[in-house]
């Protein structure tokens, strides 16, 4: 029992600093993905033939490729051009990939907003752009919350993949400590528990947000 607590303590000591990295990577990636996703969704639906096709191509192609591959490609491309830390490159790559999935989420959400909303907005003299920004998007974002909560957990789990480019998040630290203590199960098992806790927290938090901002149609 004592042995167990001791090894657990060692593992925790080394893993906990990784929590901050994992969470930061996740949040930055989600933010980037949100921006890309909403823009792409709007372009896809309201952008006309060319822009719509560009947005559709981005979404289809990026979602056909494993996230690891995207991380590799973007990491090496970014490194060739600018001197960015693996942390930022990884977060950006993750965000770039998430953007494609989020664009699908928001596309579906925008299409669920009743068409009468846009019509009424135009009827009081709003330009298409204003109508999208003030009337359609605010409703679409709220409708998207359940699917977005799912994406949140997916990005959180995919954040482990940036370990391949050397970011010191939970997984890399777990691997390091497991090679030190020769107790891989304790190391990776604890890491797993962290992710489980994060996922549950995020899901609960987002369901509270969803309930608060739910639109009664």
């Amino acid at each position, binding site marked *: 029992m004592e042995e167990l607590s001791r090894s657990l303590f060692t593992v925790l000591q080394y893993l906990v600093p990784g929590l901050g990295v994992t969470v930061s990577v996740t949040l930055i990636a989600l933010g980037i993905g949100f921006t890309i996703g909403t823009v792409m969704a709007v372009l896809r639906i309201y952008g006309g033939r060319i822009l719509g096709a560009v947005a559709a191509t981005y979404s289809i192609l990026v979602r056909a490729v494993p996230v690891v591959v995207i991380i590799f490609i973007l990491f090496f491309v970014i490194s060739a051009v600018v001197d960015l830390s693996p942390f930022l490159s990884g977060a950006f790559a993750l965000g770039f990939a998430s953007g494609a999935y989020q664009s699908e989420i928001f596309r579906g959400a925008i299409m669920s907003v009743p068409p009468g909303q846009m019509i009424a907005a135009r009827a*009081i*003299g*709003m330009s298409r752009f204003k109508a999208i920004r003030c009337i359609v998007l605010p*409703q679409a974002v709220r409708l998207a919350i359940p699917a977005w909560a799912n994406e949140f957990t997916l990005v959180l789990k995919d954040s482990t993949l940036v370990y391949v480019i050397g970011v010191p998040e939970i997984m890399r630290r777990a691997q390091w400590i497991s090679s030190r203590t020769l107790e891989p199960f304790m190391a990776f098992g604890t890491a797993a528990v962290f992710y489980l806790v994060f996922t549950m927290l995020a899901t609960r938090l987002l369901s509270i947000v969803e309930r608060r901002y739910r*639109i*009664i149609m």
Partner: protein
Amino acid sequence: MPDESILRIENLRKSFGQTEVIKGVSLTVQPKEVIVIVGPSGTGKSTLLQCINLLTRPTGGRIWLEDQEITAPGTDEDKVRRRIGMVFQEFNLFNHLTALDNVTVGMTKVLGMKPDEARRKSSFELERVGMSEHAGKYPGQLSGGQKQRVGIARALGMDPSIMLFDEPTSALDPELTGEVLAVMQKLAREGMTMLVVSHEMGFAREVSNRIVFMEGGFIVEEGSPREFFNAPKSERTRQFLSMIT
């Protein structure tokens, strides 16, 4: 002779693909006039209203709003729509905004009004339609009649020159139509120019200055309520009246 009309429609035509829905409609609306358009469903009445505020582009004919030809190429359609108020059959209230905000959003985002000024004016409009005490509620919490009244306030908030009503009570349960019609009657008394598509014959008889009967994309007959109901000139009008009374 100077044209003081609020709205002048000349030989309007509208086709959707191969189907011609409006086949040459001409109409002039004078200030403070209340015109009710009646006719069988699907004869282009709603389409007519949508053409007037340019939500749908007419395929032929011309429309003047006050002294501006709004069908002329290069017209700023968004600006035109500020001067025309529209009330929809399905209300189309902005679901994510309170009743008050539904009225203020046009003022702040389109007219560029300052927030407190907009709020003050919106409260006034809500008062006008009898919805002041529900200002903080969301559309999902309102009954149909209440939603429609907020819809009217939203349109009024833009200070339009003319109000278009597209079957405003058709989606309402019978007990709720009264409150909406009462508001519309009040507006008429206050001198608002109104163009109403409706099946409410009581309202047409009591409140309108002129009734227009549309069928098959044409205006078949128009006249004062007394002329229309008591001495219709056309056979088709007579047929229509016999079906609905």
